[in-house]
């Protein structure tokens, strides 16, 4: 009984939540440092693409993981440059990066594979079995410890909460924000990588399909706290699993529920949860503001 519960629900929920958890923790660090991170979606997409391409050419998912993280890092540093150096509006610039990121996979995939659709399928022996799950556990624990028990976590929080206080104690707010942005790139890139080389066996067009925004909703729902954010991700992961499981199931009468109604479930629940949870959450005070 317990075993079937584990193999049918708990393990699959953990699996589908993995990309969300990585991305959401990245988003949490970035927003805690005081920078809005709308661009998680684009970072995940680019991370998923480069992870699939590099895994395909090296046949090693570990290199794919590294490639996804680096691609995410590059994109996030570009974002950091526009918002920290060029003072672009954070929401507008994040949206621009999301659009930009939508164009990168088809552009490069046309050059490399002569197709704007999916990348070549990676053989099963070159894909991850369960390593990303352990990595995810490690990142969750590390995030929680860093956040609650280290100077680093405290300073990041101050950069988002009381930037002036941090500045007057001689620590650069902008430096902390660069770190927060870089972490969001690395982690969301990692999350994207798990989409293509852990949950799937190739990159397919627009495969992040809103997960970056769902991760952001999880950060809000989790009140910008690591373990709470992870819990919210698990909730959204469970919804996604239910969405997959419900397809073709007859709930009433003799007809299966139309797949379109089931597919909108994760998005619908994200909105509902946001609407119900808001008002009880509080964003970092300096979020989106200057230094």
């Amino acid at each position: 009984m317990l075993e079937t519960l584990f193999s049918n629900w708990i393990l699959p929920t953990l699996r589908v939540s993995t990309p969300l958890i990585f991305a959401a923790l990245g988003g949490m660090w970035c927003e805690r440092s005081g920078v809005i991170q709308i661009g998680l979606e684009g970072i995940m997409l680019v991370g998923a693409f480069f992870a699939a391409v590099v895994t395909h050419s090296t046949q090693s998912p570990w290199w794919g993981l590294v490639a996804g993280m680096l691609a995410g890092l590059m994109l996030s540093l570009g974002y950091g440059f526009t918002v920290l150096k060029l003072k672009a509006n954070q929401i507008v610039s994040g949206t621009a990066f999301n659009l930009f990121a939508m164009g990168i996979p088809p552009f490069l995939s046309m050059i490399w594979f002569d197709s704007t659709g999916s990348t070549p399928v990676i053989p099963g022996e070159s894909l991850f079995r369960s390593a990303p799950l352990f990595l995810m556990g490690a990142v969750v624990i590390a995030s929680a410890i860093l956040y609650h028990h280290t100077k680093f976590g405290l300073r990041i929080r101050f950069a988002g909460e009381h930037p002036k206080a941090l500045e007057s104690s001689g620590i650069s707010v902008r430096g902390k924000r660069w770190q927060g942005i870089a972490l969001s790139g690395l982690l969301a890139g990692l999350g994207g990588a798990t989409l293509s080389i852990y949950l799937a066996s190739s990159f397919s067009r627009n495969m992040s399909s809103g997960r970056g925004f769902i991760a952001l909703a999880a950060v809000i729902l989790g009140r910008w706290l690591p373990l709470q954010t992870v819990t919210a991700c698990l909730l959204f992961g469970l919804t996604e699993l239910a969405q997959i499981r419900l397809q073709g199931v007859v709930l009433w009468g003799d007809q299966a529920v139309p797949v379109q109604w089931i597919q909108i479930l994760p998005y619908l629940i994200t909105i509902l949860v946001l609407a119900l949870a808001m008002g009880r959450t509080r964003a970092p005070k300096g979020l989106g503001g200057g230094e």
Partner: protein
Amino acid sequence: MKNSEKLRIPQSALSFLRSVAGAAGGLAIGLMICTIAGESPGKVLTVLVNSSFGSGYDFGMTLFYTSYFILTGLAVAIPFKSGLFNIGGEGQLTIGALAAAWAGVAGAGIESHALAILFATLAAFIAGGIWGAIPGYLKARRGSHEVITTIMMNFIAAGVTSYFTLYALKDPDSSQAETIPLSTVFQLKPFAVFNGAPMGGLIIALAVMTCVLHLVLRNSVWGYRLKATGENETAASTFGIAAPASWLSSMFVAGGIAGLTGLVEVLGNSHRFKIGFSSDYGFVGIAVALVARGNILGILPSAFLFGVLQKGAGSLDLETDKVTRDLTYIIQGLIILGVASDGIWDWFSSIWRKRNA
């Protein structure tokens, strides 16, 4: 997340010039990226321009895309006034287009052309408006961030419209995923000069509508309320201007205008609703509104610029080996960054000063 950072954009003549320069810079970088694919930027630019202006048909198609982008650009620019960032244009336009197709089915008995158009217009506006008002309501009453809720509404709209297209309104005589075709009283006539491009008097109507909206937003009480909320919602509320009302109304109007895409696509072009007819036109609206710096009249030239880009990009697939229409995403992203990165000018001048110091 909160809107502590206001979406306010300065609108002086200088800032307008900066915006044009930023857009041009973004376009230039986007074209230069083509060298990675082994195409010369000059050739790509030539393809873009020729394909947009080459013939009466080409120009008609450019205006056809322009009319999309006027609508989706306005859908971003109007909530901008009240401080909201509506990236749900994509969902609002699909719902509006579906409603227009539904109007054609429900109003099959209508015999007057004018009445038919009016009915479809109302259906498209109200359906899109409600779709936009939902995130507006959630923002006003529950404080849910509109960027997330509008994106979620886009995905929900995709599911809802494909359900109706495949089941409730499905054309039984077609093997495609499309709704029952409209009767001729519902169809808009294209201009003959455009040689078959689906564009007629609608483009004029949209230009007039934009001018009227400009005047309304500038001179009416409603326009004043939106602006007051957008600039400082707390100060506005002390003067009795309730932010929730501004948010709800601006999102309803924006969604309704995005929904009018149903006129362009369903009444003007394919005469039915087809799944996936919009290749992210709603997102292009973000770029359109930003290049116009949120200025309502500025939407017209800006939409035209993106109309050229959209029409031209379609020819990239055929006329270049390795560059495809997906380049438009890259160019749009870069153009937005070029316009939004206003600080680049201060940054340049600080480097200049350092070097000369």
